[in-house]
């Protein structure tokens, strides 16, 4: 059912825990769907220096959280924002179709944490969807 990568990240999740004094926090999901994901980030120079998560949910939710945090750790915020759920799933060697929403949860939680950070910084939150690319482009040039 699950790939070895999923099972590895489920059994030994990386970056589990909390950050006592985080720069940003994101929480998505609810008990009704059976998944809740909470992500803490520590940011320095627009770079994610540390990241921790807590997840209630199935194996793929936990593995997606673990993999996603690995993938954005040490990355600039805008790169982290661009991490797609498909990339997370691919890095896990795939997820069963019914479980794809779990990887989406990780993407959303990271977005929330980043925007929570931006808001604390007094910055305009980035927008979901293709809209945010425009702004990223601006930054890029």
């Amino acid at each position, binding site marked *: 059912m699950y790939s070895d990568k999923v099972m590895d990240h489920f059994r030994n999740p990386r970056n589990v825990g909390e950050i006592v004094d985080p720069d940003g926090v994101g929480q998505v999901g609810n*008990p009704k769907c*059976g998944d809740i994901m909470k992500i803490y980030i520590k940011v320095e120079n627009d770079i994610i220096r540390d990241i921790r998560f807590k997840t209630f949910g*199935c194996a793929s939710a936990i593995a997606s959280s673990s993999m996603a945090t690995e993938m954005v750790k040490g990355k600039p915020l805008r790169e982290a924002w661009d991490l797609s759920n498909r990339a997370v799933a691919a890095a896990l060697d795939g997820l069963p179709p019914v479980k794809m929403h779990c990887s989406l949860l990780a993407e959303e939680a990271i977005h929330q944490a980043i925007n929570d950070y931006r808001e604390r910084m007094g910055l305009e939150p980035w927008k979901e969807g293709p809209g945010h690319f425009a702004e990223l482009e601006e930054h890029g040039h």
Partner: protein
Amino acid sequence: MIGRIYLDNAATTGTDTEVLNEMLPYFMESFGNPSSIYSFSRDNRIALERSRGQVARAINAEPAEIYFTGGGTESDNWALKGAAFARRGSRGHIITTMIEHHAILHSAEFLAGMGYDVTYLPVDEEGRIDLKELEGAFREDTFLVSVMFANNEIGTIQPVSEIGRLCKKRNVLFHTDAVQAVGHIPIDVKAMHIDMLSLSAHKFHGPKGVGALFIRRGVKIENFIHGGGQEKGRRASTENVPGIVGLGKALEISIQRIGTESARQSMLRDRLIKGILETIPYARLNGPGEDGRLPNNVNFSFIGVEGETLILDLDEAGISASTGSACSSGSLDPSHVLLAIGLDHAHSHGSLRMTLGTCTSENDIDYVLDTLPAIISRRREMSPLWEDFLRNEKKVTI
């Protein structure tokens, strides 16, 4: 860890050696079509009837009232749709419960889509229907009541005799899905006024893909699988002789040991329940306490832990268990049974079912009790839901 500990006997069981040995001759030596008239098929016909007798004796029915099917699901489908379609033009009303197996629920939904009315009786917090509610649900055009004998998730045994009596008084057919009960607890279709009863061989160490429907003599239902004249013209298809032989033998063996096994398993069950309640905080037992519960069923919710992670952690520790019902494990929905007994979603998503069997030993139970608490606490530690729960608990208890 000593080998694999299989605690999912409600999902399926292995076929007994003795049962398999009885089946084997009918694959290669005595393989003739029982409907054929030559002597080569005589043994097969005799074997079929022997099995019919074994099944009949197990539930106090007549052999002629036993019809073999392809499993518990088919039996359930047949009972509901057969009773419904026997009414031809006129639709009518069916009473069932909110905690039936999907074989019943989805058949009922199918019939509802065709214009039949269905009432789903609620259950109390232990999963039992209220006989008063049942009485109040009867209508002029009620033609069938289908209430499961014992629930597959939380083990609740329904007041079957009383339901039978109520149906009899009103001349309404009474079907019971006894897939989890047959071979595990005593059943008497006569004394309990049961008109139709579903059973499935692989739930009592028989083979998969074979079951039976008991249909009381005189009960007229439409055929479900139409075709050739097998099973006295009521269930078509070349008879699965090895499977049917296995069903009969497995049930005979189960009935022989039903007394000792149900006592032994009840004892282990209670030991497991007690141990969990003592060692794991905020463990919630789902279903009734000792009384009115299947001897082999244990079901808990551990707030803050999702069911699938539990199953996989236990699997790594060599324990096979389940969450919700096996067939819905691919789905994202919380158990309809747990919601029906009043659990919130957080609890419903965190259920663990362990169902004991003839091979379960005291050592197995002790091993589970040694293993489970650490698994629960590790997963709770990484759960934001547990964090929230504890925070609220503290608020409440202050």
